[in-house]
C-alpha cells in the first residue's frame, strides 16, 4: 500500500497523543495475558508431573514399626508372591534416614530426627499398571503393611486441582479479554474523536476506508505487542519466583519445568493474542466511524 510508512507513523503518533489511555489498555491486557500464561504454565507442569507419576510404576510400601526385620522380610516375600508384582526391594529405616539426610540437609534433618518418623519399607515395582488398583488392594491386605505411598492418588488430586484452575482461568481470562477489547476500543475511539476532523477531511478527499483505518489498527496492534512483551517478562519473573519456592519446599520430589523450555511458545502465543485483541479493538471502534459521512463524523 502506498504511504504505508506514513500510516504506521500516524499510528505511533496516536499512541503518544493518547498515552494515558494507552497505558490503561496495556495494563489490562498485561493482566489478562499474565493470568492466561500463569494458568497455562501451571497446567503444563501438572500434566508433566502426572504423566511422570503415571509412567513410574514404583510404589513405596511402609511396614508397621512394631515389626522386626524378620517379619519385614516375610512381608516382602508375600508382596513378591502377588502376580502383578515384578520386584520388591527392602529399604531399611537406616537407609531411608540417609536418603532423607541427603534430600533435606543435615541441619533440617537434625530438627526432625528425634521424632523418628521413618519406617522400614519396600520399593515395589508393578508389572501391569492397568491392574494397579487391584494390586494395591492386595498389598494393603497383607498383615503388617501400614500404608502405601500411592503417588497416583496424588497425581489424581493434582489433576483435579489443575482442571479446576483451568476452568477458573478460562472464566477470568474470558472476562478480561472482553474488558481488554472494551478498553482498547475506547482508547482508539478517544483517538478517533480527537482526530475526527482529520478523518472527515481524509474521507472528503477520497481516502479509502482501509487508509483511514490503518493508523488505528497500527495503534491497536502496537498496544498488543507492547503488552505481549511486558507479559512475557512478568510471567518469567513470577515463574522463577514460584519455582524457587516449590523447589525449596518439595526438593527433588516435584520437578518444575525450566522456563527456557516454554518461553518461545509462550511469547509467540502472547504476541498473537495481543495483536489480535489490539487489531479487533481498533477494528470494532472504527467500523462505526467509517459508516458516517461528512458532518456526521464531526457529530454535527
Amino acid at each position, binding site marked *: *500500500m*502506498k*504511504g504505508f510508512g*506514513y500510516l504506521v507513523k500516524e499510528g505511533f503518533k496516536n499512541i503518544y497523543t493518547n498515552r494515558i489511555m494507552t497505558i490503561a489498555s496495556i495494563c489490562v491486557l498485561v493482566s489478562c495475558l499474565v493470568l492466561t500464561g500463569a494458568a497455562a504454565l501451571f497446567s503444563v507442569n501438572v500434566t508433566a508431573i502426572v504423566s511422570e507419576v503415571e509412567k513410574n510404576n514404583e510404589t513405596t510400601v511402609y511396614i508397621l514399626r512394631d515389626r522386626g526385620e524378620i517379619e519385614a522380610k516375610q512381608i516382602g516375600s508375600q508382596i513378591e508372591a502377588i502376580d502383578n508384582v515384578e520386584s520388591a526391594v527392602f529399604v531399611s529405616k537406616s537407609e531411608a534416614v540417609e536418603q532423607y539426610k541427603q534430600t533435606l540437609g543435615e541441619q533440617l534433618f537434625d530438627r526432625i530426627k528425634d521424632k523418628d518418623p521413618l519406617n522400614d519399607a519396600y520399593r515395589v515395582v508393578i508389572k501391569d499398571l492397568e491392574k494397579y488398583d487391584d494390586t494395591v488392594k492386595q498389598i494393603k491386605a497383607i498383615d503388617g503393611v501400614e500404608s502405601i505411598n500411592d503417588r497416583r492418588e496424588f497425581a489424581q488430586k493434582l489433576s483435579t486441582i489443575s482442571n479446576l484452575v483451568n476452568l477458573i482461568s478460562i472464566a477470568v481470562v474470558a472476562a478480561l479479554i472482553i474488558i481488554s477489547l472494551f478498553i482498547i476500543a475506547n482508547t482508539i475511539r478517544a483517538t478517533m474523536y480527537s482526530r475526527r*476532523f*482529520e478523518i*472527515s*477531511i*481524509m*474521507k*472528503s*478527499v*477520497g*481516502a*479509502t*476506508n482501509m*487508509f483511514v483505518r490503518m493508523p488505528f489498527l497500527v495503534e491497536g496492534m502496537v498496544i498488543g505487542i507492547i503488552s505481549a512483551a511486558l507479559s512475557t517478562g512478568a510471567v518469567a519473573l513470577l515463574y522463577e519466583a514460584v519455582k524457587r519456592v516449590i523447589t525449596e519446599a518439595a526438593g527433588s520430589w516435584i520437578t518444575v519445568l525450566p522456563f527456557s523450555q516454554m518461553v518461545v511458545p509462550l511469547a509467540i502465543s502472547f504476541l498473537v493474542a495481543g495483536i489480535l485483541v489490539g487489531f479487533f479493538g481498533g477494528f470494532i471502534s472504527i467500523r462505526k466511524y467509517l459508516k458516517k*459521512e*461528512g458532518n456526521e463524523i464531526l457529530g454535527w
Partner: protein
Amino acid sequence: MIDFENVSKTYPNGTHALNNVSLHIDRGEFVFIVGASGAGKSTFLKLIMREEIATSGEIIINGNKLSRLKKRDVPYLRRHMGIVFQDFRLIDKMNVFDNVAFAMRAVGESSAAVKKRVPYVLDLVGLKDKMKDKPSELSGGEQQRVSLARALVNNPEIIIADEPTGNIDPELSHEILELLTQINSMGTTVLVVTHEHELVREFNQRVITIDKGKVISDSAEEMVDLSYGYDEGYAETYAEAPAPAPAQPDADVDISSFSAAPAEEPAGEEEPYDAGEQPQYPDNVVIIPD
C-alpha cells in the same frame, strides 16, 4: 459533467430536501448555487459528493451513475473533487504545509510528490511564505486560501465550495472568489454555494436558485418559476441574472502563474471510477508538471 435527472431526496425523518430536480452542469462551468437556509443546497452538494444517496432519480457525474456506484468506489469519485468548507476545517496542530500535504497523504501520495506539489499550490494561493505558520496565526481570508490550496492539491476536476466566504470579511470574500474564478479559467468546474448576493451579481456567472427543494431559477435556462413562494427574494435577485459564463478562460485574468497540471492519479492504485475526459486547458496556460 454533472447531471441531475428528476432527483428527489427525502431523509428518514420525512424531510423532503430535494424534489424532482433536473439540471446539467458542463465541464469547466462556474456555477453559484443560492437559496435560503434549508432550501436544499447542502443536500445538493452532499448528493454530488455521494455523502447522501438520492431517494429517486439519477445523478450522473462524468457519465457514471452514482446510484450504481459501489461503496468501495466512492473514494475514487471524491478524488475528482476538491471541497472548500465555510469553516475552513484546518487542523490546528498542523502547520500550513502539513494541512495541504494531508490531502495528498490521505490518498497515498509519496512524500517526494508532496514536497514538490504543496509549495507550488501554496504559491498559487499566495501563501508560500506562510508554509510554517499554524492556522491560528493566519487571518480568516488566509485560512480559507489554505483550505482552497488543500482542495486544489490533488488536481480535482470539480471544486465544490460550501459558503467559502461565510466566515471571512467582505473584502476578502472578493479575493477568494477571484481565486476560484482563476481556477475555473483553467478548466476546473467550480460550484459555489453562497448567500452573498452582491458577490454573485459581481461575478457574473451561472446562478442556480434552489428553494424548498426545487430549482426555481437557473440563469442558464433563463427560467423562473414564480409560482413558488420563497422568503429571501432569491428568485427576484437572480431570475434576471446574466446568461452563464462560457466555460472558457477569462482573458482578463492573469493565469500565467497557475498550474493546469493534469489530474494526477495515484499510480499503482485501482481506479474504478471513470474520470472521463480531463479538462481542456487553453493555449495560454502554462502547464507545469508536478
